[in-house]
């Protein structure tokens, strides 16, 4: 039971490369914090700094009221689940879980109780004598989890623990991890590049980009009010449509809006569009030519292009090609390819950003 606080944490490598550029956040006791961002954004490095596997160049990391900058990983009272599980290949499942307890001088009967309890929770009871190589990917993952929970640490750290599993298992394990964490109510920090994992697991979501925090908050708040265009296009799939407000056609539709003077980019989520001929007061209507259609069953994604003069927004990961707009409509019926459609969005569904995309305009 502990909270984890990061105060202006930085990491500079010997060559002068700054991987982490001053990060502040606080994970409350028992909360599940997810660090999400594209590869190379520094999220794994940050987690390894919390674990004590990477040094901290400046700033402070505080676990349960104790600054741990100079504390060895073993003394930080944390447990970590690695991406490749990092099981001890020469030890049985039982010994994999017992190793950390033995190192701390725990008595064998107590170790046995704890390992068997963990094995029961994770349904590993029948596999305690097996070696890791005799297990499937999902089973190995559970052993890695078991190794973390037997220790009953103050903090769990997860480094993309599900990325080596297939899609179906990943979803199942995602739910398992969330349930387990709720039950044990152990403070957790979880690193992923998968925005869906991030949205579903997090109490607090930290969106990172280029070694900096883009936005921190409740996942739904971040989804509903992304503070930068990076967050807007990274959180949510398919990504938010971002359009420059240079063309008079868009700007003229927004004349009543007080925010429009400071704004340079308009963002609308695909699901906030409706295909309709009616106009919405204060809203936006786009004329689109349908180029492609994806029918997933419960919903349909319509890819359309706006007028050819539509111009490019600075390219960010996950962003759409210039002039392309995605519209998400429920059900399996929709327009045909080549058809002209009119996509409209209500005024409360509009997100406005400054021209550099670094700031949200208005609420």
């Amino acid at each position, binding site marked *: 039971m502990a909270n984890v606080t990061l105060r202006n944490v930085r990491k500079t490598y010997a060559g002068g490369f700054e991987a982490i550029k001053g990060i502040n956040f606080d994970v409350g006791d028992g909360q599940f914090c997810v660090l999400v961002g594209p590869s190379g954004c520094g999220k794994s490095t940050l987690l390894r700094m919390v*674990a004590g596997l990477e040094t901290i160049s400046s700033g402070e990391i505080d676990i349960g009221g104790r600054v741990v900058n100079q504390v060895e*990983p*073993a003394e930080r009272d944390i*447990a970590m689940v690695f991406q490749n599980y990092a*099981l*001890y290949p*020469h030890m049985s499942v039982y010994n994999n879980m017992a190793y950390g307890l033995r*190192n701390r001088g725990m008595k064998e009967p107590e170790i046995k109780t704890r390992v068997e309890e963990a094995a029961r929770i994770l349904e590993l009871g029948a596999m305690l004598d097996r070696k890791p190589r005799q297990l499937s990917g999902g089973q190995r993952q559970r052993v890695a989890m078991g190794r973390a929970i037997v220790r009953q640490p103050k903090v769990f750290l997860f480094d993309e623990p599900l990325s080596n599993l297939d899609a179906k298992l990943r979803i199942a394990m995602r739910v398992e991890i969330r349930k387990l964490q709720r039950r044990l109510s152990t403070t957790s920090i979880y690193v992923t590049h998968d925005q869906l994992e991030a949205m579903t697991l997090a109490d607090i979501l930290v969106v990172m980009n280029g070694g900096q925090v883009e936005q921190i908050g409740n996942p739904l708040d971040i989804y509903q009010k992304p503070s930068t265009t990076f967050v807007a296009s990274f959180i949510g799939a398919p990504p938010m449509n971002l359009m420059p407000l240079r063309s008079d056609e868009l700007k003229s539709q927004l004349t009543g809006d007080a925010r429009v003077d400071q704004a340079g980019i308009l963002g609308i989520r695909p699901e906030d569009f409706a295909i309709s001929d009616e106009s919405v007061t204060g809203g936006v209507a786009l004329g689109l030519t349908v180029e492609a259609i994806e029918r997933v069953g419960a919903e349909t994604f319509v890819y359309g292009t706006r007028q050819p003069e539509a111009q490019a927004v600075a390219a960010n990961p996950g962003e759409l090609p210039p002039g392309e707009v995605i519209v998400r409509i429920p059900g399996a019926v929709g327009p045909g390819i080549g058809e002209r459609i009119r996509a409209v969005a209500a005024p409360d569904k509009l997100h406005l950003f400054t021209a550099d995309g670094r700031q949200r305009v208005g609420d």
Partner: protein
Amino acid sequence: MEKSVVFNNRLLPYLLLVPQLIITFVFFYWPASQAVRQSFLREDAFGLNSEFVGLENYQSLFADPGYYKSMLTTLVFSSLVAALSLSIALLFATQADKNLKAAGAYKTLMIWPYAVAPAVAGVLWIFMFHPTLGTLARPLRWMNFDWNPLLNGTHAMILVVMAAVWKQISYNFLFFLAGLQSIPKSVLEAGAIDGAGPMRRFWTITFPLLSPTTFFLLVVNVVYVFFDTFGIIDAVTGGGPAGATTTMVYKVFADGRLGGDLGGSAAQSVVLMVIVIALTAVQFKYVERKVQY
């Protein structure tokens, strides 16, 4: 499950095996069988005639206290060399595996001694430790230490052990380093988080995961100390003083080549061959069981 290749031509697979078989036959089976044949014969003093004497060569061999002495010498020499060269190489490899600044240069320098021929290595060591000429023997004498490998059997043994170990460390180092680098870093990090200090991590994680390498090197090193150290012993001590460094393989050479007792020498080499084969078999049967693949 390994895939087996299917050849269309029935002769081709045999043809492809021929070069290897020829080499094994010419350089192993033929000389080995000659040695076995020779061990049942006795040659006269002029090498003109030889007669079949049955097991007489073996009988006189096992009645010779000098032979038991050479066995003991071999036991001391080989266990010292194998143990020292393996453990020192492992120590060096674990150091080189850390992210040191000059790791590249360090590794290159570590590997060089392996390129030196055994006899040359022996000569280098005698230059360093010759009681009157040796550059390193002089400081020893200043410290009032009566260093003399030419007269003192223990000193001579220390000298050949040092030379043989020095020569073999490079080879062992190379394999240990490769073995260490194949251990995933995250497993050791997991160990660190699990509360194991560096030493405990080494003995409970690194060392067991290194066991396939260690086992392979043990087999190779035993063969090395039994046979390949001949050049070093010949150059450094010539088996002396008073047979203090006469290992079994050196005695084969000394009795056969220098002493002219071909039959006795052949019997010795047969015994030596049997010992090495038995040792290797034992290693595979008992030690390999403890290896973690």
